[in-house]
């Protein structure tokens, strides 16, 4: 018996040693992402790039590593990706450890400023910059390759801390061209025409009208701000600030109009839409059973992958009336993948060399063509991607998407979530309130949060 115990103890000790050995071999695992080889230290000459999991982007960057090495033989690019939900945590961990050179952000928007500081915390990107963790790229030569507006929209304190590689349009609907042709429908240019089109598809009865990955909540709530973008255009900024400060109420007639449009939009979503997972929608749309898909332009490559022969287009949700300047309805955009360099990067020169290489016209064009859902932030880029080119009419005077103009005060109640415009509380989708009641609840929650913030800060 004693021998058996000794043998068991010996076996356990061996097992622990073996596991420890395995852990060392793998260089440790952080948030589901393999950390770089060599115990977390960046190898000399290697450039560590972290981004979020997006297959087309990650595949392109990995493929680019070889040509980058050929152009800059002293550097080797190593790309790691983290699931979107874990990306911020992984970035924080790796920035703390100092083992990442290039990190990825989306648009630098909604900073804490004097007018909102009493009821709003700093967003992550602003925290990083204020703490000196990101390098100022303003004076780098490669930044001159990007449009002035792209740099301006992402500047902080007059400086650029990121290289905004692209924009995405996301107040639009993918539509099935075959169904539109069959039902003799055309892309609408006013809200009323859009509603008529939805009604025609419903009356036909063979196809679901609109689907959306609503089970994940954000893909549907994104369309509340999408409709807001189309309805208010550039005014969204003033309205967003007014709603935050209380100068504009959710119950004001002009805002109730938005709620009414949300309610109309919700009434044409397919039955059971709140249970449809975001990951399932490209397949559902490409199967031809649904006429439209509410999603961002970034979804195009996934739809192509689901059914390469599927013919589809993408149009912006129209505003109430046609534009006075004669242009078709314009897209609401945001800046998507933006690269920043860690101030404590072990290989700062290598990181800057990569950004320089990436932003050369040839590589940059290849990137946009390969990824398929992003539109350029450099001037005079000619793409051979038919889908991206089809977006051009709606990108002549695009708006910054209202999602980046809408603020929620700290501690706001659940009805004030998504700026007070959450589809999920609407009776039309099985929630508890009519749109007028939801507007009332949202305003009450905003008011409560404003008062609580004022009582704590004395402002």
């Amino acid at each position, binding site marked *: 018996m004693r021998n058996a115990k000794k043998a068991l103890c010996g076996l356990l000790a061996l097992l622990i040693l073996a596991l420890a050995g395995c852990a060392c071999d793998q260089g440790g695992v952080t948030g589901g992402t393999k950390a770089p080889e060599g115990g977390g230290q960046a190898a000399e000459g290697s450039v560590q790039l972290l981004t979020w999991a997006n297959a087309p982007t990650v595949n392109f960057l990995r493929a680019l590593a070889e040509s980058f090495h050929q152009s800059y033989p002293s550097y080797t690019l190593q790309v790691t990706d983290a699931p979107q*939900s874990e990306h*911020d*945590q992984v970035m*924080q961990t790796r*920035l*703390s450890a100092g083992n990442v050179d290039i990190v990825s952000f989306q648009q630098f928007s909604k900073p*804490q400023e004097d007018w909102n500081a009493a009821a*709003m*915390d*700093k*967003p*992550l990107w*602003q*925290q*990083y910059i204020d*703490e*000196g*963790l990101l390098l100022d790229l303003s004076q780098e030569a490669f930044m001159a390759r990007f449009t002035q507006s792209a740099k301006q929209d992402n500047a902080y304190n007059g400086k650029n801390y990121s290289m905004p590689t692209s924009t995405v349009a996301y107040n639009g609907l993918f539509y099935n061209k075959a169904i539109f042709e069959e039902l003799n429908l055309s892309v609408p240019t006013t809200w009323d025409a859009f509603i008529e089109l939805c009604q025609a598809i419903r009356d036909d009865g063979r196809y679901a009208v609109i689907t959306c990955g*609503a*089970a994940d*909540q954000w893909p549907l709530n994104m369309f509340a701000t999408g409709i807001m973008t189309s309805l208010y255009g550039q005014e969204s900024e003033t309205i967003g600030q007014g709603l935050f400060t209380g100068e504009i109420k959710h119950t004001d007639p002009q805002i109730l109009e938005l709620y009414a449009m949300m309610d109309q939009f919700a009434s044409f979503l397919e*039955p*059971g*839409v*709140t*249970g*449809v*997972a975001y990951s*399932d929608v490209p397949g559902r749309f490409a199967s031809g059973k649904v006429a439209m898909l509410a999603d961002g332009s970034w979804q195009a490559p996934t739809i192509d992958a689901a059914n390469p022969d599927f013919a589809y287009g993408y149009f912006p949700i129209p505003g109430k009336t046609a534009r006075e300047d004669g242009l078709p309805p314009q897209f609401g955009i945001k800046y998507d993948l933006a690269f920043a360099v860690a101030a404590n990067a072990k290989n700062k020169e290598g990181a800057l060399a990569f950004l320089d290489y990436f932003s050369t016209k040839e590589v940059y064009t290849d990137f946009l063509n390969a990824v398929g859902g992003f539109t350029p932030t450099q001037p005079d880029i000619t793409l051979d991607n038919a889908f991206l080119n089809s977006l051009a009419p709606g990108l002549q005077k695009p708006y910054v998407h209202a999602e980046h103009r809408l603020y*929620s005060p*700290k*501690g*706001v*109640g*659940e*009805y*004030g*979530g998504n700026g007070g415009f959450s589809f*999920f509380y609407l009776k039309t989708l*099985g*929630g*508890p309130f009519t749109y007028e009641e939801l507007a009332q609840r949202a305003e009450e*929650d905003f008011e*409560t*949060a404003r008062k*609580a*913030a004022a*009582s*704590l800060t004395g402002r």
Partner: protein
Amino acid sequence: MLPGVLHYLIFRLLPSITTAVLSFTDISGIPGAAWSWIGWDNYREFFVLQNARDLRNALGRTAIYALTVTLVQNAIALVMAVLLNKRFLRGRNLYRAVYFMPEILGVTVVATIWKLLFSTPTGPVFLFMRDVLGIQNPPAILSSFEYAFPAVIAAQIWMHMGYSLVIFLAGLQNIPGEIYEAAYIDGAGEWQVFWCVTLPMIWSTVTVNTLLAIIGSLQSFELIMTITGGQFNTSTLGMMVFATAFGGRGATAGGGSISGLRQGYAAAQSMVLFAAVLVVTAISQIIMTRLERDSA
């Protein structure tokens, strides 16, 4: 003894005290960022700034979650343990393994199974409701304000029931067979044997299981995070602590997220959670000890 004490001091006591201290600071979690002592501000923010209605609801949900999981999980586990302890049952070792399996599968796998089960419009539950029960527009369970929370509770019970069952089985197997024989000779029925012999004999096991379930469910956030992400009125105190510290939805009582990194605030939330666990566990311990003494 020294290694044990050192382990406790370094890996248990020190982090706990540090968390308590950090809850009075505005530490962000950003490397190198300055932080300062802010007194009770984090606690004031939690209790005053947060929407009172949502906070009440979140605390209520946390209580319902803990109470339901503790009662239902232990009740089912006890019944199953008694059945699986019967010698006449064939293949009982297989059943024990099957009931314990969800515990081994881990949170991610269990969450995936649950999501597939309830997925809309192709999941088996949805199809059953529509095609067998004839419900015209079946609700999307996991994205419904009414049903998502009960579904998450059910997942928690399903996953951890096997663990309670194994502990009950260990307790049951310690009861000498002669006591049962004597009870049956005295003419006791199955029900009387359960109430007058089995339950009093395993009361200490019931206490252990109850306390483990209370503590586990009060702190639990993993299944909520992986199944609903704290949305659709499923955020509990444990979920709020996690989402505040590491980002994502479910950080506020209303299921929303907060801007940036705020680990000082997360520490304050975890101190509130700690206080809740301490109070509930202490009260439960007193009640269970009293019941044990009475039954003895």
